[in-house]
């Protein structure tokens, strides 16, 4: 078992290294950061001086090595655009993204499961069919369009909710939170719906189809034959058995919510790490791009590693196969 885990960890580390290498190989195609950093009055000497000062005159492999060298010591370099340490900026921005992701995730899970169960039980109902049709919109419309539509409706036309920003935030020892003020909570509504809508419809459709599958099973029929109440059949027996694949998907989607907050954050000027990344790409802010990409890949690889290791515990066949050689 230890060998299995070590092998998985080793593979994950290799994936991370390759992601970093590919990222650094791509940066040069994003453009030349020097151009954004110096004004139009700069001279050729200024450009040369800055280029060698930043190490941009070296091959990307060397740049990557230097980045790794700093990263293992917790030093992700300095943002070209803001002139501040990247680690500090990321820490400052993380609460905004994590709070948004959390609220979207909770909304997606709650509504996704509730609507999924509802549409499965009332398969042929008018309302259930209406929800199913409406969910197509959630799956097919691009996030930025949903965001703009929500802004148009709730901010411009109705004037109920703010169109941008986080509202007032409260600083709790380095963690800024929008949960404690009215404007902060209001500001969360539209972005979290925008971000969570896709996941919600995904979970809803998954729950529905799993549930329909389960409801056809013999034990459900027997349960009904025994005269159990609908509620007990649907929720105690059917839903429980539906949840296994749903939880796996939810776990993986959690990473996606954080990683793909980029678009939502841009539309709502949400001051999180996604917006930071978009700004970094436009400015060719290599240290920020590198740190962000590494962070996201660490997150994805970490989740997958965890899932792999969990399988090992959950699925006895894996254990049997591995120990079969002895």
């Amino acid at each position: 078992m230890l060998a299995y885990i070590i092998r998985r960890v080793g593979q994950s580390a290799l994936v991370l290294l390759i992601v970093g290498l590919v990222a650094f190989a791509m940066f040069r195609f994003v453009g030349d950061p020097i151009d954004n950093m110096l004004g139009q009055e700069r001279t050729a000497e200024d450009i040369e001086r800055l280029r060698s000062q930043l190490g941009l005159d070296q091959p990307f492999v060397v740049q990557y090595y230097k980045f790794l060298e700093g990263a293992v010591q917790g030093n992700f370099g300095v943002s070209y655009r803001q002139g501040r340490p990247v680690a500090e900026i990321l820490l400052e921005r993380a609460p905004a993204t994590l709070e948004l992701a959390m609220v979207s995730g909770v909304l997606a899970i709650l509504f996704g499961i509730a609507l999924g169960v509802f549409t499965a039980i009332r398969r042929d109902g008018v309302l259930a069919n209406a929800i199913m049709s409406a969910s197509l919109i959630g799956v097919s419309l691009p996030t930025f369009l949903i965001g703009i539509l929500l802004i148009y409706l709730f901010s411009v036309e109705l004037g109920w909710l703010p169109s941008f920003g986080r509202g007032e935030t409260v600083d709790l020892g380095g963690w800024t939170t929008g949960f404690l003020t009215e404007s902060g909570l209001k500001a969360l509504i539209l972005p979290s719906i925008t971000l969570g809508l896709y996941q919600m419809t995904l979970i809803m459709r998954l729950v529905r189809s799993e549930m329909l599958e389960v409801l056809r099973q013999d034990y459900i029929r027997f349960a009904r034959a025994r005269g159990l109440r609908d509620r007990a059949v649907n929720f105690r027996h059917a839903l429980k058995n539906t949840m296994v694949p749903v939880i796996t998907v939810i776990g993986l989607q959690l990473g996606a919510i954080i990683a793909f907050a980029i678009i939502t954050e841009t539309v709502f000027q949400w001051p999180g790490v996604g917006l930071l990344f978009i700004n970094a790409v436009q400015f060719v802010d290599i240290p920020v791009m590198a740190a962000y990409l590494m962070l996201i890949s660490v997150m994805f690889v970490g989740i997958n590693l965890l899932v792999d290791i969990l399988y090992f515990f959950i699925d006895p066949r894996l254990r049997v196969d591995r120990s079969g050689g002895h």
Partner: protein
Amino acid sequence: MKTTLAISMAAALLATTATVNAETLRWARSGDALTLDPHAQNEGPTHTIRHQMYEPLIIRDVTGAFEPALATDWAPSADDPNVWVFNLRQGVKFHDGADFTAEDVVFSFERAKQPNSDMKELIGSITEVRAVDDFTVEMVTDGPNPILPSNLTNLFIMDKGWTEANNTVNVQDFEGGEITFATTNANGTGPYVLQSREPDVKTVMVKNDNYWGIDQFPMEVTEIVYTPIQNAATRVAALLSGEVDFLQDMPVQDLDRVNNADGLVVKQAPQNRVIFFGMNQGADDIEADNIDGANPLADVRVRKAMSMAINRDAIRQVVMRGQSQPAGMIAPPFVNGWTEAMDSESTTDIEGAKALMAEAGYGDGFSIRLDCPNDRYVNDEAICQAAVGMLGQIGITVNLDAKPKAQHFPLITDGKTDFYMLGWGVPTYDSEYIFNFLVHGRESDIGTWNGTGFDNDDLDAKIKSLASNTDLEARNADIASIWRVVQDEQLYIPIHHQVLNWGMSEKVGIEVDPEDQPKIKYFTMN
């Protein structure tokens, strides 16, 4: 006793009027200031934020004309042509209460000349700044410099004592990631005082009740809340929904919507920026075309024909939705040296252009790559697309290659493009600035943006002599003669002057500043 009472009553009265008239200006544009350190970055939006809190010796008003700020008047010294004398404003205090004196000016200029300063090129000609007395400063230049004041309008004055007390005597090492006290704090003499700042999120400034010009300017805004909003649609939505009172970086396609909305207006003015195409005429053969062993762009007839093929009115109407002013020269209209006659020299004449092409031996046309930015100027890529069709009419097959600015501009400065789009603004309001960067032959510190390969030694000498020619009439004559060469050579193909749009709530009263640098002290609120 009586006086104390009177004072406290007056204070109470002031306090009530202040609260009664509290006017918050919520202001948004696409980007944020990069730093607050007055000398660390020479960049438009960064200067704009600083202008509310710090002041230079001289500023430009909404028409672009000089206006005294911390200097009350200035003139070249009668005794020495290499010296400018500045008389400083008396009785001015920094936000922390310290007095403003000549010592602070000397200190700020020395600071701005440090190696880490991004402002050092602008004042490169200054060799010494000395305080004659508490309110007189002399600036010595390395030769007569008739347009020195033009370079000082973004050079902010800091308090010497404050920087020493807070350990920020040295300019922030921006590239090295240094953060100093001055990066996140501000202590200027300006009309607004920094209250709080989260980079990229929100900056709040409040009215400086001790400002020297409090009675001279409207100063009706008591609090400024500045928020960068990057996404154009969100930015406009914020204005439409009333969450923002004043908006810069208005998207052209939303102008009508904002104008038609209740309580909102769009104001516009020609911007200090001209858009044009450059052509590499200097090389014997160019890579971007399909002609081997020759460079069609080297022939002035081809360059003229290309200019004649561009229909600027069509670009204005179709691509720019009326938001541009066709150009005949590559100087914005407020710049010294601009003339209406030259600015209307561009004509559209397809038949004439075809004839010129035939005369030059390219009657069958040729193909060439056009490099264009897609995130720098208003509708930049769309302008290039329009040009592709127009040049096609005279047989030139243009392959458009549009890229983000971070990839586009290095092509020009590294000489890797033969046909490109560029836009140029002139912070000094003088043609010399244009010649230095776009007309002078390319060397390491001059002609850096001249991607045309044009290099004329006589003209270069003339351009260099402008810097020290104090006879303004002779100097203007030289400028006119240099422009004549630029026009006759068709060094560039001018397209148009950009128009600047500011969206605002009707209660905000301000005219558009051609430099896109609103100074909130001029704003009225009703």
